[in-house]
């Protein structure tokens, strides 16, 4: 008989397990995940991958006391008809809780499966052996929807992925984009009055020569917790563009784990984190270059009116991944003394002929820029707003995406900036 020493669980951990138990059907796979969650608990600051986001402590603050009760009660919230319009008009909306109801466009197959996320191993070597985001996702019984895009299919309208918006919601999706195909996916993570935690685990496999744009549009309520994870493999000569917008959420961990799956693949990741009040928003990315001649650029820009921001970016270049060209940057604009941001870039390079770099900056609005604008008669608040907007809008511009989507993202950013100034 093996004896596992059980650390006393925090109220938040107990609450999370209770919530998971109440969340759905009793079946072996889910039971195993719940048991593992009970056994492993939540990661804390001594787990390197969670050093800046002590999930155990932070979840306690989010789920403690009344929040816990509210969260449990959230399951009984009436299922209000979601009237949310798609981010881009004309998108194909896929409800990840009922994917079979979506009307798939030409070249696309959408189905429901019974599969839960595989949490036994983490894609981040600095994490615990079990993967926390997937574990929570599986414990809550999120079954992966599958979406397949046929080889060479060009899907014109974006595919917007949603799960029980506003309710305690845990969803998973597995997307296969065939060789030479083109598609745009939008993860829509919205709030809706419930503080219950949510999670979304996505797996995206991009075929050779395909082009995929993936948008994470996260705007949870300021008292809600969300755990997101996107796993991507990028085929030979394929292009993967990612845009992450975090414009909400009380406690957010958004992970992106990308790996090259062939020579000549190109990864372009841009993101904007907008923080205020006492939000805690963490973006953790790993980029693994495992093939020769691949490129990656990754830039996150953060605007803080308050809150705590975290960016952890890891670039790993394998011995055989010669001629890798990878650049990473994280720039933070601190507009209030109440906000702080921790940036932790890491490079692990085993190939000798590569170009890799990273940089992190944090500061206030550039005084010379402000003076220049003001010297033309633009009053200080307006000039500052213009500069802040420029700082983050550039992320959208650099992606060179479809105009309607670009404008929709910029409009979301602007709405946040206008509301918080």
């Amino acid at each position, binding site marked *: 008989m093996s004896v596992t020493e059980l650390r006393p669980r925090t109220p938040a951990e107990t609450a999370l397990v209770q919530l998971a138990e109440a969340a759905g059907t009793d079946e072996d796979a889910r039971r195993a995940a719940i048991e593992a969650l009970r056994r492993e608990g939540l990661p804390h600051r001594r787990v390197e991958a969670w050093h800046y986001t002590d999930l155990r402590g932070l979840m306690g603050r989010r789920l403690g006391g009344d929040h816990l009760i509210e969260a449990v009660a959230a399951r009984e919230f009436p299922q209000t008809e979601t009237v949310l319009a798609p981010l881009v008009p004309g998108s194909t909306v896929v409800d990840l809780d009922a994917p079979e109801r979506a009307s798939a466009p030409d070249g696309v197959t959408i189905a429901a499966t019974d599969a839960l996320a595989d949490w036994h191993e983490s894609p981040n070597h600095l994490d615990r052996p079990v993967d926390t985001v997937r574990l929570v996702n599986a414990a809550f019984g999120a079954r992966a929807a599958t979406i397949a895009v046929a080889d060479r299919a060009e899907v014109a309208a974006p595919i917007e992925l949603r799960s029980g918006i506003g309710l305690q919601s845990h969803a998973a999706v597995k997307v296969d984009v065939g060789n030479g195909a083109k598609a745009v996916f939008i993860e829509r993570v919205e709030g809706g009055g419930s503080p219950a935690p949510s999670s979304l685990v996505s797996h995206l496999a991009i075929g050779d020569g395909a082009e995929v744009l993936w948008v994470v549009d996260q705007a949870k309520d300021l008292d809600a917790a969300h755990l997101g994870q996107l796993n991507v493999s990028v085929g030979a000569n394929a292009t993967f563009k990612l845009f992450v917008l975090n414009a909400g959420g009380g406690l957010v961990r958004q992970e992106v784990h990308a790996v090259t799956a062939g020579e000549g693949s190109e990864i372009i990741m841009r993101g904007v984190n907008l923080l205020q009040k006492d939000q805690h928003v963490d973006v953790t990315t790993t980029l693994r270059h495992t093939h020769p001649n691949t490129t990656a650029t990754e830039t996150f820009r953060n605007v803080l009116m308050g809150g705590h921001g975290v960016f952890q970016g890891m670039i790993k270049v394998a011995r055989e991944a010669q001629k890798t060209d990878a650049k990473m940057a994280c720039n933070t604009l601190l507009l209030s003394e109440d906000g702080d941001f921790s940036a932790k870039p890491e490079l692990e390079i085993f190939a000798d002929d590569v170009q890799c770099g990273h940089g992190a900056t944090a500061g206030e609005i550039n*005084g*010379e*820029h402000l*003076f*220049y*604008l*003001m*010297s*033309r*008669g*633009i*009053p*200080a608040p*307006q*000039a500052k707003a*213009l*500069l802040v*907007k*420029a*700082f983050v*809008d*550039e992320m959208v*511009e650099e992606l060179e995406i479809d105009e309607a989507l670009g404008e929709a993202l910029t409009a979301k950013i602007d709405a946040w900036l206008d509301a918080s100034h």
Partner: protein
Amino acid sequence: MLEIKNLHARVTEEGTEILKGVDLTVKDGEVAAIMGPNGSGKSTLSYILAGRDDYEVTEGDILYNGESILEMDPAERAASGVFLAFQYPLEIPGVATMTFLKTAMNAQRKARGEAELMTPDFMRRVKAAAAELKIDAQMLKRPLNVGFSGGEKKRAEILQMALLEPKLCVMDETDSGLDIDALKIVADGVNALRSAERSFLVITHYQRLLDYIVPDTVHVLYKGRIIKSGTKDLALQLENEGYGQIIGEAA
């Protein structure tokens, strides 16, 4: 228009005194040239006129149309008609040139209680002014000054000046970085703006610009003071003899 009285100013952060008692009067409609070797304080004077807070006025005053502007911030000064064409115009990534121009024009109009410009009217004005200065429309589609050549930046400054219709135009070495053709275009642009109600402070350390923008008065700034004033002949004298002679006389 402008009266600078015994102006002393230092760098706010480290306290080095740069202007050490500048006295200068510019009348309505006057074009005054300020010349002087590098490091004399010409740019500092222009920044202080525009209200940059890296400099601190410790003594003296700046009167603009009879009233002190020291307490006004740069935007207020601009709205009241002060314009500075920068020696080194800044590149501002992410801010579209057209958005910037429209925001600036409308902010000034608003401050003066005038109605906002509607887009067609705005576009018409920009197109006309850009054509005068031979500025390519493509250039205006870029972010503000980003990727502009040195000469393009200088012309863009004059474009802004033409659109904002200031009353006091301070031009800091607008000639540097311009080839002779561009210099003529810019000078024509400036001359077109000359009027009885508009004054210019033209900072340069070459006489060349003054062949095209002929000044009413010329002042030599050296080590933070005006050491000599005169007519446009003073500029010619400087061209022939260099600054040495005049500096020697003043010492």
